Structure formats: structure tokens, C-alpha cells
């Protein structure tokens, strides 16, 4: 088991670390902060964050609806939430690019209003929303199921408004789960390549994202350039992993 882990995981990571160490710090810094690299971080991180936050709002709503209400096809809809996990990302990118293009089912309705989604940053964000949605729903859903409805009813009968009940009673115990879901969705969206590369026009300084830039650097046999940007993404992933562990540890205080 350790042999496999070493061969599959440690060896490749070590190869990347040593490659990045062959560069002088000044060189590394210069590539990592070049204008094009900075623009891809900007596009990647702000779009991922927005996508994760939108998923945060709608994901909580979907989890709430699935747990608390009974309506036709509820089970089917519940099962379909995992579609983005099961559907290959290339297919997701392809169909989003078609549906939201100027001639697509939804894109053609938005085109007269001057809204373009496919092949812009909105398209990238939409693909990120697609792949990240299950993370929010599936982290919030189990916590909601464990919560007792009596608590809210108690709040109501004591005279709290629905708004107060939501902010003071429902949200606090859900909050760690919501944050975890958003963080998981965000880190998935940052690394995403398959769906975003297809739905984006990959124009530098507009909708070019960091993973695509790595890919382009490799295509030009610029291994150093690819490695530097790869290291930046890897650091962000590890940082997000720490953040998620921290949120989960913090959320445990509600379990006692």
C-alpha cells in the first residue's frame, strides 16, 4: 500500500517540487507574477468564489426543500443532484457551451438582451457552478436532516418571526456545513479544467483560467512555466484543504 502511494503520489509530487526548486527564486517569482499569470489567477479565483457563493445560496435552498418538503419526484430530484459527479466534465462543458451559446436554447433568449454566457467569464462561472453544486447540497443535507423541527417550532411559538427563526435558530448550526460545502466547491472549481476549457473562449486576460494556462505552457514545452503556475495552484489546493479541516473541527462544537 505504501509502495503504491509512494509511486503514485509522492514520486510525482517530489518531481514537481524539485523541478520548481531548479528555478531561482527570482525566476520563479517573475513567472508566477507575470501579467498573464496574474490575470488567470484573477479570473480563476474570483469566478470560482462567485460560483461557490451562488451555489452556497441555492444549494442550501435545494437541501432545505429536499429535506423539509414533500412533493412529486422528490426522490428523483434528490438522486439527480449527484449528476455533476457522474457526468464526465467534457460532456458538461460541451452541453453548457451549446445551451448557452447564441443559438442555444437559453443563450438565444439572452442574446437579444445583450447577455452572452458561453465563451465568456459567465460561461466559466456557470460550468464551475455546475460541478460544485453537489458539494454544497451534500454537506448541508445531512446536517439539516439531523436538526429537529421542534427547535424552530419552539422559536415560532415564543413569537419569533420567520426571519428571526432563520437567522437565530436555523443558520448557526448549519453555518459550518454551509462553509465547508462552499470551500469544497470552491477548491473543486479552482482546479476544474474539462468543462471550463470547452465553455470558455480561452482568451488571455478575459476568460483564460490558470489550469488552461498550465496546459498551454506544456503544449509549448515550457515545463518551467507550467510548473510554476502548477505550484501556485497546488499551494492553493493545500491551503483550501487546511481551511476545510479547520472549518470541520470548528463545526464539531455543535456535535457535543
Amino acid at each position, binding site marked *: 500500500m505504501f509502495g503504491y502511494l509512494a509511486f503514485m503520489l509522492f514520486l510525482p509530487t517530489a518531481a514537481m517540487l524539485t523541478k520548481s526548486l531548479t528555478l531561482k527564486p527570482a525566476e520563479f517569482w517573475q513567472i508566477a507574477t507575470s501579467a498573464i499569470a496574474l490575470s488567470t489567477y484573477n479570473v480563476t479565483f474570483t469566478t470560482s468564489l462567485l460560483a461557490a457563493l451562488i451555489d452556497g445560496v441555492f444549494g442550501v435552498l435545494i437541501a432545505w426543500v429536499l429535506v423539509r418538503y414533500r412533493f412529486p419526484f422528490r426522490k428523483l430530484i434528490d438522486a439527480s443532484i449527484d449528476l455533476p*459527479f457522474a457526468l*464526465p466534465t467534457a460532456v458538461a462543458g460541451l452541453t453548457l457551451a451549446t445551451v448557452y451559446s447564441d443559438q442555444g*436554447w437559453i443563450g438565444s433568449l439572452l442574446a437579444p438582451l445583450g447577455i452572452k454566457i458561453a465563451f465568456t467569464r459567465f460561461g466559466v462561472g456557470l460550468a464551475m457552478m455546475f460541478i460544485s453544486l453537489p458539494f454544497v447540497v451534500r454537506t448541508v443535507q445531512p446536517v439539516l436532516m439531523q436538526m429537529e423541527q421542534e427547535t424552530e417550532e419552539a422559536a415560532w411559538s415564543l413569537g419569533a418571526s420567520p426571519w428571526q427563526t432563520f437567522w437565530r435558530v436555523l443558520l448557526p448550526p448549519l453555518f459550518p456545513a454551509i462553509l465547508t460545502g462552499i470551500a469544497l466547491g470552491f477548491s473543486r472549481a479552482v482546479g476544474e479544467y474539462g468543462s471550463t476549457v470547452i465553455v470558455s473562449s480561452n482568451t488571455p486576460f478575459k476568460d483564460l483560467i490558470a489550469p488552461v494556462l498550465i496546459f498551454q505552457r506544456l503544449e509549448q514545452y515550457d515545463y518551467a512555466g507550467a510548473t510554476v503556475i502548477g505550484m501556485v495552484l497546488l499551494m492553493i489546493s493545500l491551503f483550501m484543504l487546511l481551511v476545510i479541516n479547520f472549518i470541520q473541527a470548528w463545526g464539531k462544537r455543535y456535535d457535543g
Partner: protein
Amino acid sequence: MTDRGIEPVLQTSDLPPRYGTQTKESWIPTLFIVIALIFLALVLYIPAINVFYEAFHKGLGPFLHNLSEPNFQYAVRMTVALAAIAVPLNTIFGLCTAWALANKHFRGRTLLLSIIDLPFAISPVVAGLMIMLLYGRQGWFGAWLIEHNIKIVFAFPAMMLATAFVSMPFVAREVIPVLEEEGTSQEEAAYTLGATPWQTFWRVTAPNIRWGLLYGVLLTNARAMGEFGAVSVVSGNIMGQTQSLPLFVEEAYKSYNTEAAYAASVLLALLAVVTLVLKEILERRTGRGAKKIH
């Protein structure tokens, strides 16, 4: 009807405030359900239906014609071959890991668990890049591999490594919780009754974990067959040589062969549907109340 005048009096003075919220409740659930469904339709359902529409709207003839293309058939075989190697490898690894980590307490266990999850945190493109830096022309083993005329990068071995990398943690992740829930008492009982470790595994452990294991294998397979980013980086994407099905989809789309792209997409979408259905069945078998994230 004659007592109608009493109602407003009751409402303002005697009933608890909840009375007001109850009348609101009748439309709030409907509103929430409608908003949730509209969001899901825009992000998930309409794009999903579109896959099937685009593939079949010109009838079955063009669809079947696309399926008979040699490059397409090659890509299907490639995808099946990748999964056929990566899934068993990761299943054995996952079982060993679960067996080594579950119900054990030692220093660094949490760290080891996080390390096993790393392939999910790392961007697939970065995973591909790592493989290039190991086996590529300028990589650690590059010179040695060229000398011995072994082709890894831009060929099947690297694609296999990339596929195995991204789908590595699923089995361990699903089996560890099952093992922890079962505890070790049954195994211990088997040992004291004189069973060998091998017998204990097959007679006691395996029946306990089988549904969790199948669940993990199912997710591993879905990821292995659908992986795009990591495989794309290391494959060179040469049609009819190093092209798996997801790569075929992108290539066909980029070369304006949208119909072929959608014909291949239908196959991958069916894989997704089968995965979801089996997942649902397994979730019922394992008696899982809530669904898990992976």
C-alpha cells in the same frame, strides 16, 4: 355565516403570532420548491436533456453512423481499457489502505487520511503535469526511458497513470467508515475461534463491507471513464492512438464535428445515468439515510 364578525377579533387578540406565519406557510414551500427547480433546470436539467436532443434530433441514422466511425470505436476501447486497469488497481489499494487505517490509532493517522484524499484536492491538470515531469522528455526518468526505448508519455501507460491517480481515494473513502462502524469484535471473535486471517477476511470482513466496497468501485469507475483534464495533459491527444472517449468529445467539438461529439457524449451520459441508478440502489442496501459527498 352569522358569526363571521368574530374572526378578526380572534385573530388580532387571542391567537399566538404563529397563526400569521401559518397562513404564509402555504405559499412559502411552493415558492421555495419552484425557485430550487428553476435553478436546477437552468444548471443541470436543461443541459442534460440537451445532450440527448443534440445526439438524436436528426434521427437514429446519423447517430448510428457516428458510432461506427473507427476513431470513435478506438476511443471507446481506450476508455474501457483505462478503466479495466485503473479500477482493479485502486480497489486493491483502497482495500489495503482501509484495512491498515480503520480501527487503528497511531500518530499521523489523520495526516495519512488527508494525504490519501490529495488526488481530489489537486487539479487534474496539475496531476497530469506531475506525470509529465516524471516521465516526460525532460523529466526525472526521461533520459533513461528514451535510452531504453520505453514510451510512457503521449502513450497508454501515462494515460493509465493519470486515470489511476485521479480515481485513487474512492474505495478507501467508502470502506473505512464501514469498517469503523462495524468495529473489530466480529474479527476478534473469528480469531479466537481459530480462523486464519485469510478466512476471517473472506468469511467475516468481506460480507460486511461488500456494499460499501461496490459503492467505492462504482465511483472509481465513473471517474476513471470520465476523466478529461489529467489524461488530456499526458496523452498528446492523437486521434486513433491516445484518445479516450472524453478526449474524443472535445476534439470532435473543436473540429466542428458537433454531431460526433454528441454521439460520444450520449454514451458517457448513459454511463452517468447507470452510475446514479446503481448508486441509489447501493445507498438503499447500505441503509444510508443521507447521501455523502465525495
